[in-house]
């Protein structure tokens, strides 16, 4: 294995600046599984054909610019496949000698692909799956999570609600397993930060018609009915991982209250209007290359490959184990347009990062919120913390 490394270990180039630099050629892959999906509630959330891949192209540009001063090169191949083609696509990537793989897929597929990749000594970055379990009881030593978990996202929202002193929550959950898993994350967040779920309601996914020409008329009539006769609450928390109802909640409640979670104020890793901490430059570069606004999954893939780039730059190796060791060490930190460096949790391979709270137009706030303290890092107030982690693969 590691064909591409052997070729370059011997070749040491001496830069014009005098100090010896080790030539490293880094090859990576982005493997995206495209699932059959219903249309999103909002057209703004349609998945572009190049989702994730444009993030990869930008990361290659960024990494190659840096690499040009160090004798490092980066090349990332991209594969978009149907669910039943995912395993074959991974085999193909592995057979090309690639051992650094970013995966955009659902949890079950991520796990299966990561396990197969582990047999070949490959390091896998999860750029999309949010289930908490794959960071916990089901964690894997060769699987690093750039995408935040449901729990990180729920905690980010919860902190803002508690900061606002909106502590009585009405939880509205979807009826699909993914919605309920997200609902569970909000329950844990409420308990963690001292908020109360005064009532929980389930919004049945009956597969009804949406986005029809008269859709808004029905929404306007039906949702208030669903939302009446509730316990007194400060805020509505929506858990709709499937994206079929939460987008309709704002302005259609019985009791006028803010909506947060899957609708209204949403937790995201990045959005196309985020400008703080130099992000304007990131937006400009992304827009120039993609011809559209960045979506969270683009950012996640970009970030995963920037993690690789930073590790290669500092550790001067493309060897998967060495990259893993470096990014899990205290020495690793990376600027990601979030106002503080992103790092990894050494106990389960989850990236620590601030979470942006987005109203669909601008950054409303960024969690962790002021006053939520942690002995290690305020970022560890969001998501699974070490004492509660059941992950043992990183011990």
């Amino acid at each position, binding site marked *: 294995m590691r064909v591409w490394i052997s070729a370059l270990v011997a070749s040491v180039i001496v*830069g*014009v*600046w*005098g100090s010896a630099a080790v030539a490293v050629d880094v090859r990576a892959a982005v493997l995206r599984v495209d699932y059959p999906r219903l249309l999103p509630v909002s057209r703004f959330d349609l998945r572009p054909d190049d989702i994730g891949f444009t993030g990869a192209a930008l990361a290659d*540009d*960024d990494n190659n*610019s*840096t690499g*040009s*001063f*160090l004798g490092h090169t980066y090349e990332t191949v991209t594969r978009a496949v149907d669910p039943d083609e995912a395993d074959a696509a991974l085999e193909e990537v592995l057979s090309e000698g690639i051992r650094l793989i970013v995966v955009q897929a659902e949890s079950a597929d991520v796990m299966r692909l990561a396990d197969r990749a582990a047999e070949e000594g490959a390091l896998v970055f999860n750029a999309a799956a949010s289930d908490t379990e794959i960071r916990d009881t089901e964690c894997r030593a060769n699987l690093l999570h750039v995408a935040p978990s449901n729990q990180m996202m729920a905690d980010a929202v919860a902190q803002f609600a508690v900061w606002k002193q909106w502590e009585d929550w009405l939880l509205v959950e979807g009826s699909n397993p993914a919605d309920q898993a997200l609902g569970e994350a909000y329950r844990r967040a409420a308990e963690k930060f001292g908020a109360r779920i005064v009532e929980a309601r389930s919004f049945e996914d009956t597969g009804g018609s949406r986005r029809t020409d008269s859709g808004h008329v029905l929404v306007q009539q039906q949702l208030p009915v669903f939302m009446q006769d509730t316990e007194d609450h400060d805020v509505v928390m929506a858990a709709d991982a499937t994206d079929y109802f939460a987008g309709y909640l704002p302005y259609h409640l019985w009791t006028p209250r803010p909506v947060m979670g899957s609708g209204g104020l949403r937790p995201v890793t990045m959005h196309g209007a985020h400008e703080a*901490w*130099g992000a304007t*430059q990131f937006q*400009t*570069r992304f827009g*120039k290359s993609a011809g559209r606004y960045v979506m969270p999954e683009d950012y996640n893939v970009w970030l995963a490959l920037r993690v690789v780039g930073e590790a290669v*730059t*500092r550790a001067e190796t493309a060897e998967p184990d060495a990259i893993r060791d470096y990014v899990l060490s205290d020495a690793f*930190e*990376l*600027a990601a347009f979030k*106002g*503080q*460096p992103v790092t990894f949790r050494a106990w389960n391979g989850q990236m620590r990062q601030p979470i942006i709270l987005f109203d669909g137009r601008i950054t409303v706030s960024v969690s962790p919120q002021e006053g939520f303290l942690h002995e290690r890092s*305020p970022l560890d107030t969001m998501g699974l913390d070490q004492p509660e982690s059941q992950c043992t693969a990183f011990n």
Partner: protein
Amino acid sequence: MKTLLLSTALVALGLSPALAGKAFISNERGNTITVVDTDTWEVITEFDGGNRPRGITVSPDGKKLYVCASDDNLVRVFDTETYEELPTLPSGPDPELFILGKDGKRLFIANEDDNLVTVTDTETREILAEVPVGVEPEGMGISPDNKFVVNTSETTNMAHFISTEDYEIKHNVLVDQRPRFAQYTADGTRLYVSAEIGGTVTVMDIDEDGAPTVVDTITFEVPNVRPEWLQPVGVRVTEDGSRVFVALGPANRVAVIDGETLEVLDYILTGQRVWQLAFTPDEKYLISTNGNSNDITIIDVEAEEAMRSVQVGQAPWGVATID
């Protein structure tokens, strides 16, 4: 009568009788330049500075003001006396920060969106060179002997040492995350590079040939301020090298560092989100731009204390001063 004669003599010598010093502040979101009298600390005027003015500097004779108008993709030039706009200089796209050669003849400009440093002749108004650097070039420092320009690239995390003779990069030094500013000491033996997200200032010794060696990394700590808010940006060093001042962004403080021991001696409270710094030419005062409180803080350099603040335009970014 004596005074009148003196004034006349000064005019004859080509010197302005109005000896009040001035500070020029670029207001990034207000698209204006605020002019402040550095004797009375009153705002004299505010004039149109182009779209998204950021980097700002003055010619060695104090007569011309150069402003990076980032969204206009050029450098705007103004008369420091009349505030009249003079012919613009080409800068390459998205100029953010620049530095003027010691003789005032060349402007070295960081093009943030295009990973370039553009070199522009200030007299012929022609581009002399484009130097490819790392991703998101920003900080620009120049060695006192005029031989090297140091550019910092924010996403590549390097300081690039560019020769001013052949415009080739001679040295690259990896520093901490998101380097924002590079500042030489007046004797040219030391260079300070701030890293905003890394939260550090890298200290390099510079040898006779201009080659750098990293000798130390300065870190910051303020009680009751979250460590991630300590984001070093602007750096200025006193002429004698004894004090280094570092603007700490959202920590709303300027750190005072002993140039000998490299120990942080004190933190001076300023306005909100302090980014860039400039001394008055007599080095009596240090001015900080505070982007979120729309003001500047005037620091008494000898006392190492904030003296007062002055409201300027919207989102002040950079500052330059003249006698």
